């Protein structure tokens, strides 16, 4: 069978440093995966490799069975993979509505058109309105993105990510910087907007991880040391040692 996303012996090094050291991972369509691991383990790098922001040194990335390594971010996006960023990355001078609409313009077929008016793109506009509601920013619909609060910006970030209707979604620390209540709202939101889609998310908040994920991939020092159900991962001694830190061993030493 084909996986929604499959990584085959993926490697990446910067200069002499190997950061991703042979990652194999296969994700079924519709699965929610949490990617966890110590700081600097290579989680964001992994996302960068998948989404085309970085080119792998070797190995393969397959999206629905199709090779996508070596492609540019926009090509990959057009094939149905979308991602968010650890550091908020939206269009600061555009309104919430415009941000979201930009997110789906390509995918509703508007492309580079300059012969049609945006306001006549009924399908795109309807979907954008829907998105504004979904991420709960109706009241801020016409506010410039810079003027949103942090949490709202994070919500917008997710909104822009899912706008295009991609089937595979990568979220990098979506809840970072949010308070507990905000986080739980937010998790609900993520669950809601990604139903039926394949989701990979990086998280440090274990509450979130265990609440959201069907499966957890643990990345340590550029390798996946475990890929299993939450319960199994929680029980895994290696994971405890390397990441969860029940004892205060030196996490940085892991992998040496």
């Amino acid at each position, binding site marked *: 069978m084909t996986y929604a996303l499959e990584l085959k012996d993926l490697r990446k090094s*910067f200069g002499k*440093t190997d950061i991703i050291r042979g990652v194999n991972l296969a994700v079924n369509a519709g699965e929610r995966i949490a990617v*966890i*691991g*110590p*700081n*600097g*383990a*290579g*989680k*964001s*790098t992994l996302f960068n490799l998948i989404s085309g922001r970085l080119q792998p040194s070797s190995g393969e990335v397959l999206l629905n069975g199709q090779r996508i390594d070596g492609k540019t971010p926009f090509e990959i996006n057009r094939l149905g993979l979308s991602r968010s960023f*650890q*550091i908020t990355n939206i269009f600061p001078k555009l309104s919430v509505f415009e941000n979201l609409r930009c997110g789906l313009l390509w995918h509703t077929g508007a492309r580079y058109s300059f012969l049609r008016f945006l306001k006549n793109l009924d399908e795109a506009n309807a979907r954008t309105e829907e998105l504004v509601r979904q991420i709960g920013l109706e009241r801020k619909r016409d506010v410039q993105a810079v003027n949103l*609060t*942090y*949490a709202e910006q994070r919500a917008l970030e997710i909104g822009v990510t899912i706008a295009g209707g991609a089937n595979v979604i990568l979220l990098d*620390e979506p809840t*970072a*910087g*949010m*308070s*507990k*209540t*905000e986080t739980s709202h937010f998790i609900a939101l993520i669950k809601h907007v990604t139903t039926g889609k394949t989701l990979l998310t990086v998280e*440090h908040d*274990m509450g979130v991880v265990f609440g959201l994920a069907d499966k957890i991939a643990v990345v340590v020092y550029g390798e996946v040391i475990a890929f299993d159900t939450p319960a199994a991962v929680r029980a895994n001694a290696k994971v405890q040692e390397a*990441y*969860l*830190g029940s004892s*205060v*061993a*030196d*996490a*940085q*030493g892991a992998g040496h």
Partner: protein
Amino acid sequence: MLKLNDIHAYYGKSHVLHGVSFEVGKGEIVALLGRNGSGRSTTAKAIMGLVHAEGQLEWKGQDILRKKAYEIAHLGIGYVPENRDIFPKLTVSQNLLLGQKGAGKGSRWTFKDMYEMFPRLKEREHTEAGVLSGGEQQMLTLCRTLMGDPDLIIIDEPTEGLAPKIVELVGQYLQTLKSRGISVLLIEQKLTIAMHISDRALVMGHGSIVFDGTPDGLRADATTRKEWLEV
């Protein structure tokens, strides 16, 4: 050491702090808690002279309200901002170098100390800080401020984006600081660690201090927690 009395702060025309008063003593770890947007980061910026503030602000008996940020830094207050503000195009060691004031002589802290504290940084010593992982950047900011040899360090959400294990580690290091006579004003979201290591806890709500007491006192005060901390 640090004394705030009726501090008001503004972003342009919007009034954010409405009379904040508290003190931080020598070698004390004080946790400043509160919801998002309650004004904790603004308090830190007000102390550093980074926002327009009014009221009384004293450091070691000296009025520092109208002083410039670099003057305040020279008087011994270190600041670790919440959004990290690392210098992306500079290497890790250059970032640390900028933390030093003057030649960095007589500082309690050396490069070696920093690299021992976070060996990960040593490995990435000559890497541009911009490509560091989120967590590595967090470590870097903390170390950079320590290089300036402050007597009081204001840390805004230091554990954000850190793996659980590292969060514990940071907690330990803050206590090490305290043992070296350095005061810490810790702005936190993660109650557990803050309550665990701090000597005193402050709770902020709507731009003023609504609770000032010990962690134990806060644990006992369910109404305050409910209303201002949404635990």
